[in-house]
């Protein structure tokens, strides 16, 4: 059947193109993939991006440092708190501010909760991409609990704007620790369902194992970071390599696989949720008392120079580069967003697979389109 379609293609053309997107159920936003197909075999993919470009980097040049935070929320909206943290860390590094432990630990917990909810949404939408719509609702059901924790403490659900240069916007809510512990307990209890419904399912395994294999050297040369890179054996976890906030005082494993296929990219995220829960377990009872912010000058001016900070978002390495000319606005801000780089490898790994595999591969790279376009 496949053979026939391959050889006698419609209109006797060798290849034909399909526009996947900007509106397509499985591009998770306004990504447009121009896919060349030969029958059902993908021959070439040309991503067209920019449908949601807002010029965040340019906008940053005209606003002050505390104001930049709210824009970073809107890049990778699923790792909002981690993006905030990146800018805050860069600014604090520039000003050489000593950050108390309390802030560091709270930041780490919020980051890991962010990571968990991001991976929950990944699991949900990946299940949906693969046709198992029930996954979507189970994933969102569990994510809701994290979002409630965020909402109680930060006032926002997705767009948290919780970090600010010098600390946090608010202190943690009195219920915070209790609720986080409840959530961890609950989530440990339902995580086996994720395996029962998707990870262990024979259809899912057949569809993902061995599909879209990314070799270690390719992962490194394309700069694929985050769980997608670690599934290929690329040890790229910033939390291990350049520990920031409180990551130097917690024990956790960097989830590494060598297979590099779709299934292991998926599995890396599931395992990361477990690791994140371990990290939170270690920190949640040890939040020291103290202020939740360091008193900063009313107008923050960075000394002239270039500042750089790397953090590990849910999707990979986010680098913030700030060049300051001593003003209250940065001279230039550059974000190295993980999704934009990860998108680059899509054509490389999904060539010669079927169109259904393309969905699986693209889903396993877990794009957030606003982060690609910024």
């Amino acid at each position, binding site marked *: *059947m*496949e053979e026939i*379609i391959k050889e006698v293609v*419609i209109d006797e053309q060798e290849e*034909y193109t*399909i526009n996947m997107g900007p509106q*397509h*159920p*499985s591009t998770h936003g306004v990504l447009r993939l121009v896919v060349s197909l030969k029958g*059902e075999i993908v021959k070439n993919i040309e991503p067209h991006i920019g449908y949601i470009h807002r010029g965040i980097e340019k906008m940053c040049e005209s606003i002050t440092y505390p104001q930049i935070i709210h824009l970073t929320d809107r890049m990778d909206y699923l790792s909002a708190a981690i993006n905030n943290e990146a800018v805050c860390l860069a600014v604090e590094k520039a000003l050489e501010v000593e950050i108390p432990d309390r802030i560091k630990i709270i930041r780490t917990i919020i980051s890991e909760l962010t990571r968990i909810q991001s991976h929950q949404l990944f699991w949900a939408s990946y*299940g*949906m*991409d*693969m*046709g*198992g*719509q*029930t*996954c*979507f*609702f*189970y994933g969102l*059901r569990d994510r809701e609990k994290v979002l409630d924790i965020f909402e109680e403490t930060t006032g926002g659900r997705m767009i948290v704007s919780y970090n600010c240069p010098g600390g946090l916007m608010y202190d943690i809510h009195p219920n915070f620790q209790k609720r986080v512990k409840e959530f961890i307990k609950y989530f440990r209890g339902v995580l086996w369902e994720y395996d029962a*419904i*998707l990870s262990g*399912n024979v*259809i*899912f395994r*057949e*569809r993902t194992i061995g599909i879209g294999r990314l070799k270690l050297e390719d992962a490194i040369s394309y700069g694929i970071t985050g769980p997608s890179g670690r599934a290929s054996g690329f040890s790229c976890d910033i939390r291990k390599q350049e520990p920031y906030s409180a990551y130097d005082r917690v024990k956790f494993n960097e989830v590494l696989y060598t297979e590099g296929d779709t299934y292991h990219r998926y599995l890396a995220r599931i395992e990361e949720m477990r690791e994140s829960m371990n990290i939170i377990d270690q920190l949640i009872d040890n939040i020291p008392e103290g202020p939740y912010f360091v008193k900063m000058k009313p107008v923050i001016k960075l000394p002239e120079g270039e500042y750089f900070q790397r953090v590990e978002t849910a999707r990979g390495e986010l680098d913030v580069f700030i060049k300051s000319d001593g003003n209250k606005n940065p001279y230039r801000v550059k974000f190295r967003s993980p999704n934009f780089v990860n998108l680059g490898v899509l054509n490389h790994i999904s060539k010669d697979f*079927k*169109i*259904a*595999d393309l*969905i699986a591969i693209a889903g396993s790279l877990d794009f957030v389109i606003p982060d690609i376009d910024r």
Partner: protein
Amino acid sequence: MLLNTISNALSTLSEPWWKIFYDFSSLTQAIDEGLRSSLSPFWAVTIEMLIIGVVFLLFYALIGLFLVIAERKVCAFIQNRLGPNRIGPYGLFQTIADLVKLLFKELIPIKNADGFLFNLAPYIVIIVNFMVLAALPYGKGLHAIDFNIGIFYVIAVSSMSVIGVLLAGWSSNSKYSLIGAMRSGAQIVSYELSIGLAIITVVVLAGSMQLSEIVEAQRTGWFIFKGHVPAFLAFIIYIIAGTAETNRGPFDMAEAESELTAGYHTEYSGIKFAFFYLAEYINMFIVAAVAATLFLGGWMPFHVGNWEGFNRIMDFIPPFFWFFGKTFFVIYLIMLFKWTFPRLRIDQLLTLEWKYLLPINLVNVLIMAFLVLMGWHF
């Protein structure tokens, strides 16, 4: 006049009205005799056909609407949701509102589409559904046509529904539609083999193709119990292949919305889309009804050996309800498949058929024939 005839016929019924639920043949015979006594045979037959047509139209619409709401509710409960809950009690009238909406929606003409085939395709699917529905035994004596070759007729007619899908995909002049149609063509054609062989397993056990006889043969026990392992295997295979045949659940490659947006009915809108949508649900009903008839004893109540009291209680439930109870059980199974499993890829789908279902099925038929020859079934 017509109503008079029917009410006269009803008044001649000797038994109380609720007895009708146990045996419809007295009712249908009474109507037939009533019509024939007052009209010429030509008009009697015409009016009977009309009555049956109207009844099936109503039945079709009701089953379709009910299944849509049922599916939405089932999937909602599976997913920890409430499902439709706005229109009517528990949202039960939601589908009626949807239907009204679809009726009023614009039928968007497609540029460069083959208009004739584009419009024909949904009707082919619908007509095929009707033709199959007519042959199913719904209860004792509730049977539009009882063919000698009943089950063969059902396979024969349902094999045509793929034509509607193929025509729809091709005439839409859309690549997504065409890929969807191709997939569904390959899928339906290959899974028909499994359905056929699974049915043959039962036919071997029953020794007849007439649906009423098949049901009657299960008076002493449903075939799924009577034919022990082979019948059970055939049931499983039938359910899997039936799910694939209706383009549902993990086999919805033809409309795979995460890949092909909506597959073969991407370009359809309004009531024509509703036809495809409805036909999918009626197809599911047909598959479930045939499964209930062949494997679960049709309208036969559940009996256990010689537990007289238990069997007596089971007999109290009218056959009509037995049939629908079993059908909805199978429908629930099929829905559970859809809402649990991720979708297969097209080549895995064909591998499943040709590498697993078909060989097992062939061996299964052989074993069943052997069992029947040796008389080892119950």
